[in-house]
């Protein structure tokens, strides 16, 4: 069963180094959990700070100890560490840390802050890390479940809110079906090929008949669900809208990196011998997501629901990168995912800061007159919305450009034209946020909290969106280094 080539390294402490992120994170989670249990009321407020410290240590360890120069396989081939994985983990760590940082005051003001919140966020992050490093179908499943279960609990975190509970149930039930599909597909693959290892699956060539196609279809369904692609998107608007904004922020950012890794590991690597198997399915998912996401977003009056449909549309763009089945396309998909996460962090951050103490401020109407009420916040939102719409000089433009370029490079002219046309539809609802902020006078007069630290972070976040837009070569060369030529 076990390939001796994969088993040649014996387990020593030093050989565990590439897995340092997960080890440190798991240790950190236990430490924070213990602290939170025994800290009592007086010291509990430190949990949040301690979490950020743990995340910072994890990032540092990942960089110093965990960095690998070449692809390294651990634990009998269950686990893989490579440059892409290290970077994605770092990005996920930073995104989660930023999420928690943006959320702190929001949670305090809504009085739903508890130590469990930080711990669940960290377990979700652990799931993301495991998923990123998965090299075996079981590891993939482990990561997916760890991530999903943490998120289900987080969605219901505001336990007095009916709408949050509804969203959580919906998310949980649909998520369980998706997990079932994933397991079913995996078991079929195992039955057909006799292996769970992605390394070995990658060597299995095409032409397996209908069974293989069906297995892949089940796996693609699960991937589409995790990404939130049409027609497996039903949970997205409800969760974005029903969950507390801070949880929506968490779900909208770091897990997208995990979904990207899922596609890279499972489809591009594991089932990469014959991309045709999944390319057509992904094409259909991408086209539907682009159309439905953009069109339905127009009708929304709630910004969180709008951002949910926008997320669906953006997932369509990411999937278009995979549709090319080409290195340039994967790079484009990676840069699009990174840009999307960066921009979404900012726009949800603004939403969190603007939230009132008695609830959310997420209706479009709440943003009326923000341009005069809080010019700085409005300016940041302006930049973030324009970036998502894909207008230069902001980085969102380049993300879209590379996807379109990759599509044209692989002769997908029709898809490229579809992509640019739906961007125009998309521009409308992003511009609508700007219109409400700047062109309409507001009735809301409550001042928005100062929160200098959060504002500074938001400012830097938006500045990064602009700076990467002016000098996009940074992002591009990064993606080139992470996803090498085949």
């Amino acid at each position, binding site marked *: 069963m076990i390939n001796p080539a994969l088993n040649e390294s014996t387990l020593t402490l030093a050989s565990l180094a590439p897995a340092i992120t997960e080890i440190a994170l798991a240790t950190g989670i236990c430490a924070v959990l213990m602290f939170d249990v025994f800290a009592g009321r007086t010291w509990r407020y430190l949990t949040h700070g301690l979490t950020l410290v743990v995340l910072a240590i994890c990032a540092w360890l990942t960089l110093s100890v965990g960095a690998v120069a070449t692809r390294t396989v651990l634990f009998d081939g269950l686990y893989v560490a490579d440059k892409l994985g290290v970077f994605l983990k770092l990005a996920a760590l930073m995104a989660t840390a930023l999420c928690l940082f943006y959320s702190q005051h929001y949670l305090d003001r809504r009085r739903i802050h508890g130590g469990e919140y930080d711990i669940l966020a960290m377990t979700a992050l652990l799931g993301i890390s495991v998923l990123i490093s998965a090299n075996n179908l079981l590891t993939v499943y482990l990561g997916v479940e760890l991530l999903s279960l943490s998120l289900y609990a987080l969605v219901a975190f505001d336990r007095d809110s009916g709408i949050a509970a509804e969203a959580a149930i919906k998310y949980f039930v649909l998520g369980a079906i998706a997990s079932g599909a994933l397991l079913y597909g995996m078991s079929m693959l195992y039955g057909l090929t006799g292996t769970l290892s992605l390394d070995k699956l990658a060597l299995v060539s095409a032409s397996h008949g209908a069974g293989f196609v069906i297995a892949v279809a089940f796996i693609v369904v699960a991937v589409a669900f995790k990404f939130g692609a049409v027609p497996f998107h039903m949970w997205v608007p409800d969760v974005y809208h029903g969950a507390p904004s801070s949880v929506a922020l968490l779900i909208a950012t770091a897990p997208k990196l995990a979904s990207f890794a899922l596609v890279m590991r499972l489809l591009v690597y594991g089932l990469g011998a014959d991309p045709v198997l999944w390319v057509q399915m992904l094409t259909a998912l991408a086209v539907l997501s682009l159309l439905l996401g953009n069109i339905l977003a127009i009708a929304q009056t709630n910004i969180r629901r709008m951002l949910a449909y926008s997320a669906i549309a953006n997932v369509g763009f990411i999937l278009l990168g995979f549709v090319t089945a080409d290195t340039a396309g994967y790079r484009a998909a990676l840069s699009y995912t990174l840009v999307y996460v960066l921009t979404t962090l900012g726009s949800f951050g603004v939403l969190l800061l603007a939230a009132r103490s008695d609830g959310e401020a997420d209706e479009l109407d709440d943003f009326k007159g923000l341009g005069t009420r809080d010019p700085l916040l409005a300016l940041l939102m302006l930049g973030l919305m324009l970036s998502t719409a894909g*207008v230069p000089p902001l980085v969102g433009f380049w993300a879209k450009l590379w996807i379109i370029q990759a599509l044209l490079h692989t002769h997908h002219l029709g898809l490229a*034209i579809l992509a640019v046309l739906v961007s125009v539809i998309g521009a*409308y609802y992003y511009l609508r946020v700007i219109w409400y902020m700047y*062109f309409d006078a507001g009735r809301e007069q409550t001042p928005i909290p100062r929160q200098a630290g959060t504002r500074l972070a938001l400012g830097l976040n938006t500045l990064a969106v602009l700076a990467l837009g002016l000098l996009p070569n940074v992002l591009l060369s990064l993606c080139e280094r992470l996803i090498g030529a085949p």
Partner: protein
Amino acid sequence: MLKLNALSLLSTLVWLPIGGGLLTLLIGDSRAQVARWFALLVSIATLLLCVPLYQGFDHSTAVFQFIERMPWIRQLHAEYYLGVDGISLPLIVLTAFMTVPVLIAAWTVIEKRPAQYFAAFLILEGLMIGVFCAMDSLLFYFFWEAMLIPMFLIIGIWGGPRRVYATLKFFLYTFLGSVLMLVALIYLYLKAGEYSIAGFQSLPLTLVEQRWIFLAFLVAFAVKVPMWPVHTWLPDAHVEAPTGGSVILAAIMLKMGGYGLLRFSLPMTPDASRELDWLVIALSLIAVVYIGFVALAQTDMKKLIAYSSIAHMGFVTLGAFLAFDIMANTGSTSGAVNGLDGAMVQMISHGLISGALFLCIGVMYDRLHSREISAYGGVINVMPKFAAFMVFFGLANSGLPGTSGFVGEFLVILASFKANFWYAFLAATTLILGAAYTLWLVKRVIFGPVANDQVAKMSDLNGREFLVLGVLAAAVLLIGIWPAPLVQTMEASVRHLLEQITVSKIPVG
């Protein structure tokens, strides 16, 4: 040292206003007066920088000058690549020139968020100059799209009652046009391996490829010009925009469509242009004749001038695409030069005249807060100085000899005779139609008895307004009487363009 200055002159022209605009934003509305003066000084400094640009420009060659070239996105072979030739230089000077009166005209009129208003125009100026001197098509697209942001905000924040509708329509229309151009540019990049405009111009393309690329470009540029039938955003945008927004829209932004046709469509897809020139000519003639009649029916002053702009820009597209017919008929390029010269002069002239007319309407609007023609009448009795300017610009708009309006229209009509008598016949109707709608407007607004009490209370031009209109009137006269410097500047580049379009790009074999 001198060499260093010359090297970065174009960059300074682009980034000085943008940087100045950001600083103006920082100065903020609380120190509005400081912000105003600062913005004005930046715009004057930018205009003064055009003096060394013009003086250092060598008229005798079509080679791009003041070249700045450095890698920008290595992976895409996209460069930060700036340069000017005889076609872009006049447009750059026009941009720098028109921004100054726009800022002065807004001095006391804009009370809401003044610093942001001034900043928006400065940033817009830098981006527009960037469009005209970008030699890399990705850089061109970058400026071309970025420009939409300040204009979107200008119309949306400081515009009239239907500003939201107008500005969204403006943005989405232009955006829709541009994205197809982006697809075409990426397609060209994948063939050429670089984004430089010169590289695209010398890239061999089959006729089928050229047709599609030509059409993609045409959509983008036709929306911007705007050509019939994609012009409907313009009247809305003009009516709702604040005076300054209307001026920049008419004077500069529309020219980008014309510039794009000359810089992209004609030299990059010459064979498709030859094949499909009838399409552009037909649309241009419809714009000249039909939109002329539409202008006649307007009751809103700004809308009337907006339609007049569409008709006048029809001359630009007509002049540019007559070349193929002329060369087929006469076998020489001399007649075609007239058409292209006419198109260029018309762009500059229309920039000045339409800008001035919008400023005139702004002057009246500031006093009476109405754009309806029927609200006015007999303005000459209370505002004699203003009436003189308004009459002058009205005559220039109808193409009176001695004004710049005459030169461009005359050259284009002259060229169209060599192409086809009926083209010339239809184009010449503008002399009647243009005169009719402009002079009828002037007659109803300026002459006659004082219409009502409100008009009677209107005060004549103040020094600031007089200065602005005076400078523009001088420029219109100067080009009308002595167009030689302008024509000489672009001579070599226009001839080079003609050479480019006469050579087929279809690969042999």
